[in-house]
């Protein structure tokens, strides 16, 4: 059975699809699909046919999930999608993350929302309910948004145990569940707390993106507002891993995405600072810490001959599941880049898109 690589790109003006064969040398571009809608999240799901889910939102018209069964040509809005009850007082502004359930739960999907909350479907996306143990957590009155809004942007599942999950919210922190999402515990000890002016020390941590180690489900990595962190105890405690990645003296490394490859290689796109939020001096550098290394290195100069004063958003870098793996990211200026050699050399994919919000790989078998 032939395998195709589809790279799903969500922008603030619709969804785009790049398609290639397993070699990933030549790419074709289609889209925009859902033009006019922001797509903060996309997911290719091949568990029941080939379906694309998109978390669509608009400043005037709110947020919904739409699904396509023909590679983006037509879409259906999910009628009983995520929604907050009138009594909750929360608003559903955006869908920041769509994630498949544990492999033992093939009908399950999760959605992370802004205002921060987690939703689940157990019927392949037809009906959704809030896992409201999170928004009913005693710390909830102390949750405050970061600059991008109070979003639940990361959903991770322990492959050993479908009941054990982590979510990350900006600027709230990491929460872990051991019971499939019914009850949650903050897991932020050791992170850099941002000043919220609120007394609750358990929350107020500005997680930008978090990934799970492919070999050890107790090991997590995080790009945080105040540095790059690692946990080896499932998030119970965190420590910095910043050797080699300091861009400005006395400042913790700032950036949004962090990606982990199937072999454990880690990647960042550091930015100059929280104040400037663009790559330093126009150098679009990808930093890597290959498996077994203990120090970050600027391994990929993506556009060595041209300055690129851009940024890369938290969900706009990803890794595919081929061997060798492909590493991809999209910029706030709408450019998509790909590397097939562990981040060292880069090619730009065709097209100039709008502001890229998310990039997700999808391996399709024809």
């Amino acid at each position, binding site marked *: 059975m032939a395998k195709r690589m589809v790279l799903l790109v969500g922008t603030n003006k619709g969804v785009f699809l790049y398609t290639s064969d397993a070699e990933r040398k030549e790419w074709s571009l289609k889209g925009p699909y859902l033009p*006019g809608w922001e797509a903060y999240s996309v997911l290719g799901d091949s568990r029941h046919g080939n379906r694309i889910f998109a978390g669509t939102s*608009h*400043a*005037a018209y*709110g947020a919904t999930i739409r699904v396509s069964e023909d590679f983006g040509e037509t879409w259906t809005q999910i*009628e009983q999608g995520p929604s907050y009850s*009138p009594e909750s007082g929360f*608003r559903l502004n955006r869908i920041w993350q769509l994630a498949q359930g544990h492999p033992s739960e093939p009908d399950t999907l999760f959605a992370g929302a802004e205002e921060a909350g987690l939703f689940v479907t157990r019927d392949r996306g037809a009906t959704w309910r809030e896992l409201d143990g999170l928004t009913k957590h005693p710390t909830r009155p102390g949750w405050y948004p970061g600059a991008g809004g109070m979003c639940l942007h990361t959903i991770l599942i322990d492959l050993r145990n479908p009941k054990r999950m982590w979510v990350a919210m900006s600027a709230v922190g990491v929460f872990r569940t051991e019971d499939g999402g019914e009850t949650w515990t903050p897991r932020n000890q050791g992170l850099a707390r941002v000043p919220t002016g609120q007394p609750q020390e358990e929350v107020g941590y500005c997680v930008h993106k978090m990934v799970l180690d492919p070999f050890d489900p107790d090991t997590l990595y995080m790009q945080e507002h105040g540095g790059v962190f690692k946990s080896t105890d499932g998030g119970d405690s965190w420590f910095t891993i910043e050797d080699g990645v300091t861009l400005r003296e006395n400042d913790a490394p700032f950036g949004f995405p962090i990606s982990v490859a199937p072999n454990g290689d880690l990647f960042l796109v550091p930015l100059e600072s929280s104040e400037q939020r663009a790559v330093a001096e126009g150098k679009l550098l990808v930093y890597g810490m290959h498996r077994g290394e203990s120090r970050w290195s600027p391994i990929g100069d993506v556009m060595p001959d041209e300055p690129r004063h851009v940024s890369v958003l938290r969900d706009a870098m990803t890794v595919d599941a081929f061997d060798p793996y492909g590493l991809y990211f999209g910029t706030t200026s709408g450019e998509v880049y790909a590397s097939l050699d562990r981040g060292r050399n880069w090619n730009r994919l065709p097209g100039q898109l709008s502001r890229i919000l998310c990039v997700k790989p999808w391996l399709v078998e024809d």
Partner: protein
Amino acid sequence: MRLEVSVPLLLRDCTGGRSRFSLEADTLEEALRRLIETYPLLKVHVYDERGQVREHVLLYYNDDNVAWLDDLGIPLRPGDKLRVLQAVSGG
């Protein structure tokens, strides 16, 4: 009474692919209810979690913003129009 309705192009996937269509109703209140009953996908885009018209959405009955009408029980007349509009919000 037949009422002409228009919705923004962005929302036409919620109204059977059409941005202009008609509804049968006797009053404006009934027309607003039938709009959502007939096209339930529209509800989340027009109304917020509290059931209020979204902050940046306008419902216009002919030349009047529905939000400023005292009584929605207005009997509909031939040629009446109901428009769902995105409010001008920003530059």
